[in-house]
């Protein structure tokens, strides 16, 4: 069955696959997770703040992002980001953005909706005594959030946040639809150039599986270690 397959093609393209493809994927994952978490926490705070309008806007944003397929959002932002840049910087023509920047913006905006739901659950799970005590101590709202509530929420939701990051890692493969060179895109390029679809796609599947499995195993271990009783 595997008689006329050429697995050597994998060895020959390892450099390109990992130095170009995997670094793109991992960098995108890392930065998007960070950006998504920050932006998501902001959105969660907006929803939980007392201001109805703010909460409404945040809620609409989250619902919108969660109703749309990621592929469609990727297309939207790829064509839209230069115009947004033009509007933000007030320049006379659309701003030049590369594929990486456009993908980064897309994933930050998209994942922020999911991270915001996680952080919202985390913040709400903190007992009311905490912010009450902080207020009694005379801390302002932002100090309460920064020093009391958010650190605890973050720690409680860490396993869920990490799981969402693993999902993000897998979702980055969708930049394939724009021929952007992430790990899967690199594997496809080699596959199409040399006609070795089976070898390259099997290899890509194995690599994604290995990384995701190891990561989720790590998260499970983390979960048991940080579990503590309130």
């Amino acid at each position, binding site marked *: 069955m595997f008689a006329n397959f050429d697995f050597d093609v994998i060895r020959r393209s390892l450099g390109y696959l990992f130095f*170009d493809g995997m670094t793109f994927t991992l960098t995108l994952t890392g930065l998007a997770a960070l950006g998504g978490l920050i932006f998501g926490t902001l959105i969660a705070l907006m929803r939980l703040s007392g201001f109805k309008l703010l909460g409404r806007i945040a809620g609409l944003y989250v619902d919108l992002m969660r109703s749309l397929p990621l592929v469609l959002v990727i297309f939207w932002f790829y064509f839209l980001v230069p115009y947004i840049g033009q509007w933000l910087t007030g320049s006379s*023509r*659309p*701003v*030049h953005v590369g*594929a990486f920047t456009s993908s980064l913006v897309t994933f930050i905006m998209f994942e922020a909706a999911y991270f915001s739901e996680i952080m919202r659950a985390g913040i709400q799970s903190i007992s009311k005594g905490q912010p009450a005590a902080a207020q009694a101590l005379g801390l302002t709202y932002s100090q309460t959030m920064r020093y009391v509530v958010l650190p605890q929420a973050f720690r409680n939701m860490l396993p869920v946040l990490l799981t969402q990051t693993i999902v993000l890692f897998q979702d980055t493969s969708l930049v394939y639809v724009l*021929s952007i060179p992430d790990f899967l895109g690199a594997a*496809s390029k080699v596959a199409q*150039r040399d*006609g070795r679809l089976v070898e390259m796609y099997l290899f890509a599947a194995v690599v994604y599986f290995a990384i995701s499995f190891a990561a989720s195993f790590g998260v499970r271990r983390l979960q048991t270690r940080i579990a503590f009783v309130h």
Partner: protein
Amino acid sequence: MKHLRMIGLALAASFCAGQANSEELTGTLKNIKETGAITLGFRDSSIPFSYLDDSQKPIGFAMDICYKIVDAVKKELKLDKLEVKLNPVTSATRIPLMANGTVDLECGSTTNNAERQKQVWFTNTHFLTASRFVSKKSSKINSIDDLKGKSVVSTSGTTNIKQLTEANAARNLGITIIPAKDHAEAFLMVETDRAVAFVMDDILLASLVAGSKEPAAYVISKDAFSKPEPYGIMLRKDDAAFKKVVDAATAALYKSPEGQKLYDKWFMQKIPPKGLNLNAPISAELKHEFAMPSDSPDPDSYKAM
């Protein structure tokens, strides 16, 4: 105080007068001067116009023409350094990326036609090619009507897939049209028997066949979906100043003997990465166009001498 202000105004006025000597730059030229960089869009498998070699660097006939244009722009703007940024494009993304400012020149195998001119502009034509299809000899497909009821692939965003779609509807052929992301993927579909034919510009088909594992197994159809249509390097619409510079550069290149040499380099000699020789002598129509460069979208306007 009043004297200081007068002196200040006078200085400012003389400064402005000095500036007013240089032309007011607009559009792409202004952007290039301000950022010191120009962005070229390239293809990854439009052999031999714009494609990636073994070290994943874009090379090709259209790339070389673009570099000549870059030299002309550098001279025109009197810049010491002009950074050339490279941005990959596909058939489907080239026009939106041109419109939204991501690329300044698209150097590939883009067909110049009237409909596209509503969104972008083109400079002088650098090639003429008709839309045909490639299939395996063993499938015994000789004419467009033989494609009836079969699966045919073409690349998204091309004039070819549009012509195929229209022909399918007009002649009632019941073809299942499979869109592919780029030419390499589409050709692979024919190679792996997923589609019986791939509709594309005949020069691109010839290159893909020549570079395949078994060139003798394929045949390019005699039937064509279109007349020979012009390829042009794309630039932004309504940017007359930039177009003037680009047109001048390409016209100068084509009229000079260097133009013919560049053509021979990519079509009559061995090209990287596999050292293939396409052996496609310059057609009479294209030779005529090189002598009298034109950016017309009308295929009928290109005649032999």
